[in-house]
């Protein structure tokens, strides 16, 4: 079982390494969206520090949705998704593996880029640390919930926008706890409460969403 899981993850990592362009697009999207905000709202450092966490988090949601629309699409097109679903391995593991691979490929870079953006937004050093920590805990939620949406919208016309419409409302708790942790740190209140709530939400999505995504895959494939 574990072998299957790691095989799914390794396969996606290899495929992603072969298509670096897609990967870069998503990261640049993240950076660009965040960089637009100071141009829109003005360069006042105090204000930027106040909105920074929220902006980075919202951009992270959008960037992850951008890449999620392709999560199952390529495997669906060449028929390998169907093969994997027909294999005796449990589809839950397939869904989990795909989501984890997405997190490794697209989630981890987000939190590595985030400090640079945090500096742009005049966030203090400890707030930047909390921002990274909140993205570390919260970005699996984005991949996991997003995998449900990607499975539901597999092969539909306008799948990308539809995916955003379906999943963005479900991301709300992660956004609130994640950005809230940084805000609390900026205000000197301590981020532990927010981070532990975020972690609880992450664990819950980890337990629930692979099953839903697997069911959705079966619905979409048959």
């Amino acid at each position, binding site marked *: 079982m574990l072998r299957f899981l790691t095989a799914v993850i390794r396969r996606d990592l290899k495929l992603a390494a072969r298509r670096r362009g897609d990967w870069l697009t998503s990261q640049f999207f993240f950076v660009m969206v965040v960089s637009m905000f100071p141009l829109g709202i003005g360069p006042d450092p105090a204000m930027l520090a106040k909105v920074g966490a929220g902006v980075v988090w919202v951009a992270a949601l959008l960037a992850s949705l951008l890449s999620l629309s392709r999560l199952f699409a390529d495997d669906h097109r060449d028929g390998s998704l169907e093969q994997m679903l027909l294999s005796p391995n449990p589809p839950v593991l397939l869904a989990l593996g795909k989501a984890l691979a997405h997190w490794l490929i697209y989630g981890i870079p987000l939190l590595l880029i985030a400090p640079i953006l945090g500096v742009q937004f005049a966030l203090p050093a400890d707030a930047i640390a909390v921002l990274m920590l909140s993205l570390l805990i919260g970005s699996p939620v984005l991949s996991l*919930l997003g995998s*449900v949406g990607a499975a*539901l*919208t597999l092969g*539909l*016309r*306008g*799948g990308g926008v*539809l995916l955003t*419409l*379906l999943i*963005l*409302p*479900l991301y*709300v*708790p992660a956004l*609130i*706890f994640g950005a*809230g942790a940084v*805000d*609390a740190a900026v205000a000197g*209140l301590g981020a532990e409460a927010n981070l532990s*709530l975020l972690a609880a*939400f992450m664990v*819950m999505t980890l337990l*629930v*969403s692979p099953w*839903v995504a697997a*069911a*959705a895959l079966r*619905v*979409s494939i*048959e």
Partner: protein
Amino acid sequence: MNLAIFKYAAPMTFYRLAGRMIPWFAWGAGILTAIGLYIAFFVAPTDFQQGEAYRVIFIHVPAAWMSMFIYLVMAFWSAVGLAWNTRLSFMMARALAPTGMVFAFLSLWTGALWGKPMWGAWWVWDARLTSSLILLFLYVGIMSLWSAIDDPRRGDRAGALLTLVGAINVPIIYFSVQWWNTLHQGATISMTKAPSMAATMLIGMLVMAFAAWFYAIATSLVRVRGIILERERHTEWAAEILEGK
């Protein structure tokens, strides 16, 4: 309730039954609305705190209740459909969604119009308002998923899964927004408590809630009949109806 009805009963039976029930619920909704409006405007006294503005609650509270209640019913039918593979329950979920969305919109609209004179703002990012907004987004998402999927079988199941995920998520969203509100104290406005309600106000509200309930049943039955007919068009009984009419 006997689930076997939904599994084995021919959609034909339900189609006919729904056809007979619709006028009752439609008339019931009309009469209850008339009574409710009479109580709302001519029986219920002026509130000593809020003046006449409180009369918005006779439409706001029932709309807010129904938007949540209809979502719960949709989640129930989705769960039944996924568990027992009953086609009729998926169709019920589909038929309910547009009415639920209408009520979700109305609860937001009337909430804004009530909030302006009471709190001095059309909109505050309070837990209840924000989760109502998210609820509206969920309705929109589910309905656009249905409209994007042509295959009815796939659409039924995909919509049901999304409905259930949303149902799990709504309480979490409500909690998280409430939590978020306590952090951002600058923006909070002390919510005026519901006015100590006179009995007539409560009765008026309940009557209006029942009217909304009957209305929702009537509209969803009309809709479900359309869906049944469309899916069963190759059967003999549906052909008879199509030729007869």
